[in-house]
């Protein structure tokens, strides 16, 4: 276990894991009961990757997460109510109802960016953020997450090339959950080892067990330090798994691309189920302390949902606002005269 992982840190990370899990489960429930509309992409089972990496980074490092990366906001102590409110389309939401699910933006307050939902779209953006850090002489680094499916997008490799060429402070984290919707990673990705991609560009690629939050923390802590000290980009490939479908509509669509046995096997490695017991067995914390965290989380979730429910919907006439930072008369045009 890493030397940083004392009782407080472990309980804090457990809270992040459990709050993320409960948040995702609540999102599914709220989707089923009609409070949240549109397709939902929860990341049940994948929480440890973002939680481990974000806890290893500094609070002011720049983070770009994927559509299952709400754990980043949670690690940065964002009020979960802002996320629910956004998903309810309320003004109080972090994007004031404009972005919705998959597009949370907390960049100004917490340097967490989930805004762009293009496949692998955040990778070149966060390579740019790293370039900005370098040009401005900032000490922060940039960390960007993407999935195994996104690994086939060309601009990731253009970004890696640029990151190495300019020696940029960026960590590319692959959340390899083995499936891009229904397509297996073995089918879509030619590399035998996913870390080979980074090596082709001349920098380090590290593979880690994405269900083990301690290992992720250790790998991330070392990577963050190397990158911050000018060592150039690093790639971390975290092997994880999503227990739920690609999106909640998968139940209706009746897609069969993986077996129930496989899902059950991965569920036995669920860190939220297994890690607390390990901590208790090793004497890091007590079962009462774990229970106390769970109760705190339930309270937070309940309050967050109430906050979202009591929020206000935007006025229709606000639909055209905030397209431009520099306004000109008559724009944007509204679509009917």
């Amino acid at each position, binding site marked *: 276990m890493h030397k940083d992982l004392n009782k407080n840190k472990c309980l804090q990370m457990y809270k992040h894991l459990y709050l993320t899990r409960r948040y995702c489960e609540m999102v599914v429930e709220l989707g089923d009961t009609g409070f949240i509309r549109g397709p939902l992409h929860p990341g049940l089972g994948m929480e440890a990757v973002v939680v481990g990496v974000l806890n290893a980074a500094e609070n002011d490092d720049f983070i770009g997460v994927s559509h299952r990366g709400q754990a980043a906001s949670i690690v940065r102590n964002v009020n979960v109510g802002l996320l629910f409110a956004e998903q309810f*389309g309320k003004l109080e939401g972090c*994007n004031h109802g*404009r972005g919705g699910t998959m597009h949370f933006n907390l960049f100004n307050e917490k340097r967490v960016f989930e805004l762009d939902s293009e496949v692998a779209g955040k990778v070149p953006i966060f390579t740019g953020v790293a370039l900005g850090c370098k040009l401005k002489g900032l000490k922060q680094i940039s960390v960007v997450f993407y999935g195994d499916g996104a690994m086939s997008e060309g601009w990731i490799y253009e970004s890696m090339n640029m990151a190495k060429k300019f020696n940029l402070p960026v960590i590319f984290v692959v959340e390899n959950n083995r499936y891009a919707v229904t*397509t297996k990673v073995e089918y879509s990705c030619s590399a035998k080892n996913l870390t080979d991609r980074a090596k082709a560009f001349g920098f380090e690629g590290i593979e880690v067990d994405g269900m083990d939050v301690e290992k992720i923390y250790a790998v991330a802590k070392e990577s963050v330090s190397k990158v911050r000290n000018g060592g150039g980009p690093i790639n971390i490939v975290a092997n994880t798994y999503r227990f739920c479908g690609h999106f909640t509509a998968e139940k209706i669509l009746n897609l069969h691309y993986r077996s129930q046995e496989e899902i059950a096997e991965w569920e036995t490695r669920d860190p939220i189920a297994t890690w607390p017991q390990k901590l208790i067995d090793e004497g890091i914390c007590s079962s009462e302390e774990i229970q106390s965290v769970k109760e705190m989380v339930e309270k937070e979730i309940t309050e967050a949902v109430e906050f979202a429910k009591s929020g206000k919907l935007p006025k*229709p006439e606000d639909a055209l606002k905030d397209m431009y930072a520099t306004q000109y008369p008559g724009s*944007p045009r509204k679509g009917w005269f």
Partner: protein
Amino acid sequence: MREIRYLQAVAEALNNEMKISDEVLVMGEDVRESLRGVTKGLYTTYGKDRVIDFPISEQGMIGCGIGSAISGFRPVIEFQINEFTFFAFEQLILQSQRLRFYSGGKIKIPLTYIVPGSGARGGISGQHSDNPYSFLIEGGMKVVIPSCAYDAKGLLISAIRDNDPVAVFLPTRVLAEKGEVPEEQYTVPLGKADIKKTGSDITVVATGHCVNIALEVARKLEEEKISVEVFDPRTLFPFDKETLKESISKTGKVVIIDDSPVSCGFGCEVSALIGEEYFNLIKAPVKIVARADVPIPFSEPLEEVVLPNSAKLENAIRELMGRTNA
């Protein structure tokens, strides 16, 4: 005649074309499992050499499609998400659309692009709710948007049999609509519009799901003795201006309702065409009801405001009926 859903009609058209001709291939992402429903069952029937799942590399996929088309196949490429057309824009416009011309007509590129579930699906926000057909029209590509199940089957078959790239947009809001569809293969000719409802007071040019909006408004206004003619271009490019001319000469008034951006969208093109060639046939301004020039917002009250809808169409028609130069 049996009634089937629009999506089923599309799937049937594709399946039968694949049966008729070995040249027809399907390429896309998650087309074996058929996430979007258009390619359901095709992998089981036709195998891995004709139904090909690609990694998420749109430029590469379109490039492979172009190469296959030049080599004698008829690929049908499915875009899982509307905005993937932007990812692959250079391949779509500068390659698939231009290469035949630059070869002096020597090569043919019989590609079909299908965009299932185009347009706003409700709660999926700015980067998944586009209707990118106006971009392709500007690039010079043939574009069809069927508005009902019958047209969907016929137009897709025509698109596959056409020897040029044709983009077929299947609007989200009509995918579940039922309609009468013959069991045999048949074609609906490209470049030919359809008057979905005849009328004499005003022509409403409507595309995709806006045709249903127009028909609904037309039915309502009948009670007030306003006779609306609903003109469905079906093929947006090349556009059937002869049929439009006949309609406008009868009514003298036009409203265009279309789900692409108000600036440089399809509505602008129809209006500009009327302004240029049929100016003397109209008696009133040409109104456009289109999307606002903003990405689609998530929150429901905002999403409704920026999209074309029946209230806006009705207002536009009423305004024109109240003010003409006649």
